[in-house]
């Protein structure tokens, strides 16, 4: 089976002095729910922007259904990949349904209006995300969690096999975090959509995602020619089942913070403990 998205030996930097990604290489099978995690500055958002075709890798390529992403036209790509960015309030007061309808813009008729098919897709997206009941309200009058569901509805109305999300639950409270992940899981399970989400929330990702990609920040040493380890230098990332990647030792190494870990049921949870935390020195580090 061809991978939904294949990232082939990608490197990227903002200018020659600031390498961010080095030889990232992995494939995502169709229907997978993948979490992309890592410390600030490790290049998570850069990676998702490269996978969405917004940034071009300096070397390597992203293959979408086996074909180089940059050989796709803007519209052709938008029929395969939808992108949800961090929740925000747009400058102008569009309503929920107006916002979701925008996903259909490239398919409007010559007079700039949607077809019945567009309306059906939008109605379905509103229903799946449970946003239909406030469809006529302005985006700015919604809570953050409701607004994020609207942006996910807009992405669903694009009717794509792949959904990319850049920190979909940042700024959301606990209930909305769980709500968004439930929604993403049902999109993956019921619609066979490949979901790839950049996240800081390792615990929710452990509960919902199949696989995880952990990125480590590049340091001057590990990226430049002064790298002592030579050709055998460690890869900048690890990918695998969530349980394996989100192991406490891995997280401690990647984030450089002491963590406490336990099990909820089958899955682990990980809690960072700084030097001044009340339980800074727990009796045992259980794994």
């Amino acid at each position, binding site marked *: 089976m061809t991978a939904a998205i294949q990232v082939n030996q990608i490197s990227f930097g903002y200018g020659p002095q600031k390498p961010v990604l080095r030889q990232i290489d992995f494939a995502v099978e169709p229907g997978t729910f993948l979490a992309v995690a890592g410390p600030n500055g490790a290049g998570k958002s850069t990676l998702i922007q490269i996978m969405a075709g917004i940034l071009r890798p300096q070397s390597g390529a992203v293959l979408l259904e086996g074909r180089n992403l940059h050989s796709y036209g803007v519209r052709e*790509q938008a029929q395969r990949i939808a992108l949800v960015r961090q929740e925000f309030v747009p400058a102008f*007061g569009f309503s929920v349904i*107006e916002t979701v309808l925008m996903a259909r813009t*490239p398919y409007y008729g010559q007079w700039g209006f949607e077809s019945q098919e567009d309306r059906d897709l939008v109605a379905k997206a509103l229903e799946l995300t449970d946003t239909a009941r406030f469809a006529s309200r302005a985006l700015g009058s919604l809570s953050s969690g409701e607004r994020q569901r609207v942006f996910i509805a807009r992405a669903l109305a*694009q009717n794509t096999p792949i959904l990319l999300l850049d920190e979909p639950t940042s700024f959301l409270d606990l209930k909305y975090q769980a709500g968004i992940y439930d929604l993403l899981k049902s999109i993956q399970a019921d619609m066979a959509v490949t979901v790839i989400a950049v996240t800081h929330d390792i615990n929710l990702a452990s509960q919902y995602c199949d696989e995880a990609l952990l990125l480590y920040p590049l340091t001057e040493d590990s990226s430049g020619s002064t790298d002592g380890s030579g050709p055998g230098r460690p890869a900048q990332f690890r990918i695998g089942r969530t349980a394996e990647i989100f192991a406490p030792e891995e997280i401690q190494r990647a984030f450089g913070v002491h963590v406490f870990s336990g099990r909820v049921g089958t899955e682990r949870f990980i809690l960072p403990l700084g030097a001044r935390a009340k339980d800074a020195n727990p009796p045992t580090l259980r794994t």
Partner: protein
Amino acid sequence: MQPLTPRILLFRTVVATVLLLAIMLACALVGPQDISLKAAVSGPRDGATPGLDYEILMRVRIPRVLLAAMVGAALASSGVVFQALLRNPLADPYILGISSGAGLGAILAVIGGLSWTLWGRSPIAVFAFLGALGTVWLVWGIGRITGKYQVTGLLLAGVVVNAFFSAMIMFLVSIAKGQQLYATIFWLMGNMAEEDLFVLWVGGGSILAGLVALFFLGPQLNIISVGHQDARSIGVPVERVELAAFAISAFITAVAVSLSGLIGFVGLIVPHAVRLLFGPDHRQLLPLSGLAGAMFLVVADTIARMVVAPAQLPVGVVTAMIGGPFFLFLLIRHSRKVYWPT
């Protein structure tokens, strides 16, 4: 707000057009010299020489009202486009330097004492037009370099170029002679005069063509006003649409400015007022703002030629004096409905 349907759009556009025509007719009949519509239309049929009323209506009032309508429509529509492209409700057609560029061109023409004409246009208009397009091209170029996906660079470039050219305008104004000064000040405040029909045809034709072209960019402008990357990721060719919308609105603004000087406030308050009343959908916002801008400027210009008759005020004084308080009223009353970008 329910999504827009073609029927609602058509209905509102037709109603607004009828309203505009009624206002234009009423304003054409108002003036220091009383004229009657009946006398004016029956004039030329009676005898070989048309009556005075007919002459005034056809040669003075109607061209002037048409000019005001054209300029108002152009400024309001480009205001809509600039606000969408910059994702900033405080943007107006002058924010990227068109006004100061045009002003500098106009002043150079006045001070240079040029007296030739090009297709019936004075050097002031020609220089203003070129100054406007040159400046906006410069600002757009700087904005492209400073940040591909961020509008802040573009906005700052506009502010700085505006400030720099305004300083040059002030310098030239301070060394200008009396009569030159008077002409310059009137131009800078925005001023209408009776134009000949050829100018109206060319100016009106290009503005109308621009407005029609902008209407077809309406759906794309909706998503672009949400975000550059949002537009790209749903499949809109953002760079192309942005460049087209920007070029068209800069062009019609330059045409409007070269015809009437710097008339302020129309491009800011009309889009706002229409958005507050009818919602932010650009498919509707563009035609309705164009029509409302035309109505607003026709009325403002009628006031400008009436209040100190037989002398005239620069129409920019009227638009600012009506527009300022009206805008504050709208802002206070509806501020809870407007969502400012964070």
